[in-house]
């Protein structure tokens, strides 16, 4: 590559509109005597999981060098959050990594609660609902991860199975939060509203259906010879590599380290739940697949425990602090919007101060003491950290997210260089990066 005889490199722009372009390239390749080609994969490529761009240096079919180009989905979410109240920040950060909206919300809210000093005052029931929603979200995210993994290997059945399971979970989300994605459900101090009637029985049904769906996927993939040939000993990265590059999540656990923030730094009361951390020791794409499959089963176990606890734990779902908690429980009207009629009658009819307080809290928001806080949750892709800085106002001074996809992407060159071109697809799919989270 760095031979002294290297001449000035020639550049070619391929628009695809003229077949003669390739003749020029072929002629130049023959002249140079090297079988090396730099190709551009993405940002518009069906197998790069969104708008990731890979610049690959190929020697024949062998990948010599991988360079990653990100930023094609940069949305300015962190900047936008600086111009909204602390509560409104939830609606922005939920749209970052759009396959795990509830984790984004939870991580942000945990950080804000830490800054407010109300971590212990968040109601028990709200924490249980958070855990249940996050675990269901983990399953839906993993189902899409495994489904797109299959699709990128050329197996549409895996995709349809994954999507079907996800649809069921999204139905439950819609019942509980009102929307399929981008919920804005978890708020600083609790969750926005209690479970609707019939939600727990719905979730119980969902658990049975999902368990069945996971079983089908396992049957379809886990011993499938084509799948094994494509994933075993492919996209290998060992534990030392993972730790050096800051890789977390299923990648790290597939390399043999049972590092899971739910166990090692519990939040939302995870220390009270009984579940195992899925670990594999192969460090390859197949190991990651097995970790994800096992994690879905473990998540179902946690959801079952949540349901048992919800049956015995009543009470509010928002902090009992009029300075922070939203003024009233929402009561849905016929127009699909609304607020508790009792509450409105009370503040409009008899209490001017309550009306002023309601107005100030909704339009201006609450103040957060100056300082900074870091909170992290174990998202489906790894450690999702949030660093919030407050200058004492009603809006964040700075919110920064440590997105697991962004950090994990560093491992792509280590996984791919020296391998085959086709295995680059497997490496990216097994890593499951979400560009919405990477670029924010």
């Amino acid at each position, binding site marked *: 590559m760095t031979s002294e005889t290297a001449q000035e490199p020639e550049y070619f722009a391929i628009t695809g509109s003229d077949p003669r372009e390739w003749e020029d390239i072929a002629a130049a390749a023959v002249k140079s005597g090297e079988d090396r080609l730099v190709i551009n994969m993405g940002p518009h490529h069906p197998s790069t999981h969104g708008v990731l761009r890979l610049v690959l240096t190929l020697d024949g079919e062998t990948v010599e060098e991988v360079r990653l180009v990100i930023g094609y989905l*940069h949305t300015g979410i962190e900047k*936008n959050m600086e111009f909204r109240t602390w509560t409104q920040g939830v609606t922005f950060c939920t749209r970052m990594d759009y396959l795990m909206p509830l984790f984004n919300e939870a991580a942000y809210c945990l950080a804000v609660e830490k800054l407010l000093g109300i971590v212990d005052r968040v109601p028990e029931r709200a924490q249980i609902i958070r855990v249940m929603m996050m675990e269901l979200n983990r399953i839906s995210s993993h189902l899409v991860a495994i489904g797109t993994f299959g699709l990128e290997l050329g197996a549409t059945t895996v995709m349809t199975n994954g999507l*079907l399971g996800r649809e069921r979970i999204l139905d439950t989300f819609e019942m509980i939060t009102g929307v399929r994605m981008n919920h804005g459900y978890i708020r600083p101090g609790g969750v926005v509203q209690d479970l609707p009637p019939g939600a727990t029985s719905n979730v119980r049904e969902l658990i049975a259906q999902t368990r069945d769906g996971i079983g089908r996927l396992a049957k379809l993939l886990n011993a499938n010879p084509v799948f094994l040939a494509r994933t075993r000993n492919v996209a290998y990265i060992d534990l030392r590599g993972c730790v050096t590059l800051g890789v977390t999540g299923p990648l790290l656990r597939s390399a043999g380290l049972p590092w899971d923030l739910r166990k090692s730094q519990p939040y939302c009361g995870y220390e009270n739940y009984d579940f195992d951390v899925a670990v594999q020791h192969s460090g390859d794409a197949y190991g990651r697949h097995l970790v994800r499959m096992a994690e879905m089963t473990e998540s179902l176990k946690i959801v079952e425990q949540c349901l048992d606890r919800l049956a015995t734990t009543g009470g509010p779902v928002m902090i009992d602090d009029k300075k922070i908690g939203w003024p009233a429980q929402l009561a849905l009207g016929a127009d699909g919007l609304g607020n508790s009629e009792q509450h409105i009658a009370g503040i409009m009819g008899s209490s001017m101060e309550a009306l002023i307080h309601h107005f100030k809290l909704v339009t201006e928001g609450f103040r957060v003491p100056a300082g900074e806080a870091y909170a992290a949750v174990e998202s489906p892709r790894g450690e999702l950290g949030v660093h919030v800085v407050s200058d004492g106002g009603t809006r964040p001074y700075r919110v920064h997210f440590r997105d697991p996809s962004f950090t994990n992407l560093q491992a792509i060159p280590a996984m791919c260089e020296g391998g085959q071109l086709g295995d680059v697809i497997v490496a990216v799919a097994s890593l499951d990066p979400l560009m919405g989270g990477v670029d924010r």
Partner: protein
Amino acid sequence: MGIEEHLPGDFLLGRVEQLAGWARSSSLWPATFGLACCAIEMMAAGGPRHDLARFGMERFSATPRQADLLIVAGRLSHKMAPVIRQVYDQMPEPKWVIAMGVCAASGGMFNNYAVVQGVDKILPVDMYVPGCPPRPEMLLDAIVKLHDRIRREPLGPHRAARLEEHEAKALQGISGVGR
């Protein structure tokens, strides 16, 4: 576009329009252009529950050269804008564009330095789908409406006459003139 554009206006054109419209609307091939959250809902629309195959659209084309519908699903950043324009230019005529979701339609909640405030700044959009993200059913609704429009699309002299009519109306300052 093709030979159908060169038929004289007084001979068989109505029939050819019907035939071409039927063929085009029954086998619309979308280009995969997933950007953000909406892309996942677009995938869900192609999934088993909503099943785009009912409309002859299950073949999402990875190459723009074999696609005639561009579904812009998600927020479009300034860095991505030239890419999407190139993809659009690579698609053969006739072609249509759906702006899926508020971000694609108007920039949505991301009124900031990073996001193009509506893909209609760089592409001619035929159908806007509101929602954040729109449900798969809403995308299906937009697609069915687009099918209907494609089925009735005039060709050749009829098309020229329609365009002239619209231009005349626009010059008179009448608002609400569509395509």
